[in-house]
């Protein structure tokens, strides 16, 4: 038996799903954000077993599962742009208008790259390997955007 092909009554209802949400950074996440916000410092957590320093911070080393929650390390506010992409489309949830550079920055002292926006260089000219430095936001929001962006040194 086939589906009824009668579509005369079909229509589309416009709706919305709006739900409130609260995100908790946790103790470690809060320390990380507060260090950026209040002291303009970027902190990582180091695993002494693996010798690896993670940023943003996490409670346990992902490789050996040692608890590293108290092993804070101050990282530099400069680093190497190890990778990047150029965002060329606009959408209201994006932080910037296109085109803008989204980069992976390996800060001095860190083993993991931090994702952030790179400004002050033409997207057509940006290359991996350049050194960039953090520019802290004047107005803070308790988010990673308390670093406003990175720019070439």
């Amino acid at each position, binding site marked *: 038996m086939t589906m009824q092909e009668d579509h005369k009554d079909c229509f589309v*209802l416009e*709706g919305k*799903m709006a*739900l*409130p*949400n*609260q*995100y*908790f*950074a*946790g*103790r*470690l*996440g809060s320390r990380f954000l507060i260090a950026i916000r209040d002291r303009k410092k970027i902190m990582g957590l180091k695993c002494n077993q693996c010798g690896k320093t993670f940023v943003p911070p*996490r*409670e*346990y080393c*992902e490789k050996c*599962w040692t608890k590293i929650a108290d092993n804070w390390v101050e990282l530099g506010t400069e680093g190497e742009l190890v990778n990047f992409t150029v965002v060329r489309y606009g959408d209201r949830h994006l932080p910037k208008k296109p085109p803008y550079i989204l980069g992976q920055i390996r800060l001095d002292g860190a083993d993991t790259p931090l994702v952030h926006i790179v400004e002050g260089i033409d997207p057509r000219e940006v290359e991996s390997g350049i050194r960039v430095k953090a520019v802290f936001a004047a107005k803070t929001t308790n988010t990673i955007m308390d670093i406003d962006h990175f720019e070439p040194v």
Partner: protein
Amino acid sequence: MKMHAKNRNVAIIGIGQTSFSSHKEDQNQVEMVQEAVINALADAGLKIGDIDCIVHGNMELFEMQFAPDLWHSLGTGAYGKDEYRITTGGTTGATLVCAADNLVASGLYGTVLAIGMEKLQEGNTTGGITNMADPLWFRNLQTGALTGTTAQEMIDEFGEERAKRAAMRYRIMMDKHAMLNPRAHRRFGLEYSQMEDLMANSPPLVGELRLIHMCSQSDGACAMIFTSEEKVKQGTKNPPVWIRDHIQVHREETIPNLFGFNKPEMTHHCAARTLFARNGIQDPVAYFDVFEMYDPSAWWAVDWLREFFLLTGDEHLRMLEAGDFDLDGTIPINPSGGVIASNPIGATAMLRPAEAALQIRGDAGGHQIKKEVRHALASGFGGTFWTVLMILEKELNWQEVNHD
């Protein structure tokens, strides 16, 4: 190949829980999940490298977070491993156990870690539940899990006084169990002498369903580790708890047609009768030593005891009134305090087999049943009255019956 026949038997060898509360501001979701996983690994005496596969679940979008398993991979240990995400509403925790059981029983994986979690403080629970309804028709009418129809049915059947006392007695019994469980979220210290006062004064939510009858909304996570018979023979840190059988019964989405002039068979009843028949269990009240039942409210709990144990008339009320369901009774219900005491939804249905397994191991601590627990029953509930039901055993000695 016979249906429901396993390729090999599966045991629970590790159980980990976080505490359950409404305030976990000092942990983010990853950290909370990892706490349960680390507890489970420690309980099993294993390392994350010993796990072959992860099954992860919670209520979809309850924290307004899509695909949280990806975010949680730092905490679940899923990095570099096979992972399945399972989300089936309130039954999620139990379905995770079914899935883990199936994955090990199939022979495809040796040791599987199942994780159920919820951080309700980060979302909006009732909003999430009402969102499940058909957006065209039912959504604006939904009150989520709040309904007083069962209470009214019980009042119509047994009389107002007896029905209300039964629901309240059950509620206080759950609190007494929760007081013995340090991980439970809500522990009020209620006494039976407060029955009349609570019956009259607890704020009514819907009909006779009052605030005191309803389950909590908690944050927390539960993790369990499953492995095969072969691995168990090589030695385990704790005594294994065997999963004998499980069943899931769903029904259509439209709840109102449970409340017409008469009811179709409830999924709880269908699950129980099918599961017991194919396992040759004639008298579930006599057979089982404990039942960790998913009890979203005291009224539903009392009603469903009749369904699950295939009782008739007022047998369940007489058993409740005689103390048969107490911790030292013939068939204790929810020694952990049940869903009423702690409800981190994505984990809640996993806590039922987890707590049942702890009872079998003799490890439950303050809320341990004193008599030996060899046969346990655990249920999950969710969605539009779906039921998951499973049987756990202390020893690998049951007879296969019929598997049609």
